[in-house]
């Protein structure tokens, strides 16, 4: 998805690094990278370390890092000019779908993103560097990063225990830690979707393992708030 933009901007001293936040590991993430035939670093983060270090609570999220390895925009929803996934959904006639999938798609279609504005801002930064009005000061970068109270930090610890237990074949034990992570940080979609997906891939519907599901939780906050509006 980012290949085209990367090709356009690479000669200007710009690189894309994708990171798959996938407890499912190589098996889950590699087919997508192979299919994209990516020519930029395409990393795997099985332990969700990037979530914790950069404050990623949903995907896709982008972080801008300048030539001196200073963050100039912290994690925020990021789309490459066009959002082919959402575009393909636009054309979809939900009446042709199984009812539970149709319900999900009705909500998905209400999700708001602004890929064109994001791309324009990114191009401006690549051209103008620190002079770009989209490049934020260090203080603003810190202030805009996610909150980290005790609840969020404890959620991160539970999530990590869960991911380790899952990876070592103790899936049932992982669920209780993931439930706790969801309770402590309900706005973290990464924790929730990663966990739900093991019980019910694609739909991420309600199961005995968790209190929530994608559609229930999206309806609770309103699909238009699923990606917070990017304050460019």
């Amino acid at each position, binding site marked *: 998805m980012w290949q085209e933009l990367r090709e356009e901007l690479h000669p200007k001293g710009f*690189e894309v690094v994708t990171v*798959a936040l996938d407890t499912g590991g190589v098996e889950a993430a590699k087919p997508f990278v192979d299919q994209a035939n990516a020519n930029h670093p395409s990393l795997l983060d099985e332990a969700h370390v990037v979530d914790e270090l950069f404050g990623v609570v949903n995907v896709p999220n982008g*972080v801008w890092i300048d*030539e001196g*390895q200073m963050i100039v925009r912290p994690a925020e929803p990021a789309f490459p000019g066009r959002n082919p996934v959402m575009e393909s959904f636009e054309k979809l006639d939900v009446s042709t779908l199984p009812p539970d999938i149709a319900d999900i798609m009705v909500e998905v279609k209400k999700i708001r993103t602004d890929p064109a504005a994001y791309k324009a801002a990114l191009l401006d930064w690549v051209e103008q560097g620190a002079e770009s009005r989209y490049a934020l000061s260090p203080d603003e970068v810190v202030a805009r990063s996610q909150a980290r109270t005790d609840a969020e930090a404890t*959620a*991160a*610890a539970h999530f990590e225990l869960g991911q380790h237990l899952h990876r070592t074949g103790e899936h049932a034990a992982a669920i209780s830690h993931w439930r706790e992570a969801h309770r402590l940080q309900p706005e973290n979609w*990464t924790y929730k979707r990663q966990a739900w997906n093991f019980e019910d891939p694609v739909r991420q519907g309600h199961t005995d393992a968790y209190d929530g599901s994608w559609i229930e939780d999206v309806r609770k906050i309103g699909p238009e708030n699923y990606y917070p509006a990017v304050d460019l």
Partner: protein
Amino acid sequence: MLLDSLHVDVDDFKGRTGWSVQPQGLCQGDVCLPLPADAVADGRLDVQTVAERAGMPLVHDEAHALWALGPAAGSGRRVLTTAQAPDVELPDLRTGKLFRLSSLRGQKVLLLAWASW
């Protein structure tokens, strides 16, 4: 940070959390927390002391004899304490080789988090 012991190698600790042991204490960016002299012995850090000093939650899974140390937290705190990008090292799915974010110093980088799920 996942732990099977409450004494952790200082280099492992730095690699995973970004906090390093310095003469003035435990430091990350410009922030340094004083540590009692006995918090480090034989290159290993006493996790309980550090957790308390740095406001890091320590979660114990007794049945599996494991702990997880969460990131430093507190009221009003943000995930980032500095705009300096944390240096992460992760495997590249194309090659299987480890890739370090800081190897791109000198270029502008868009770090893009995505997932298969």
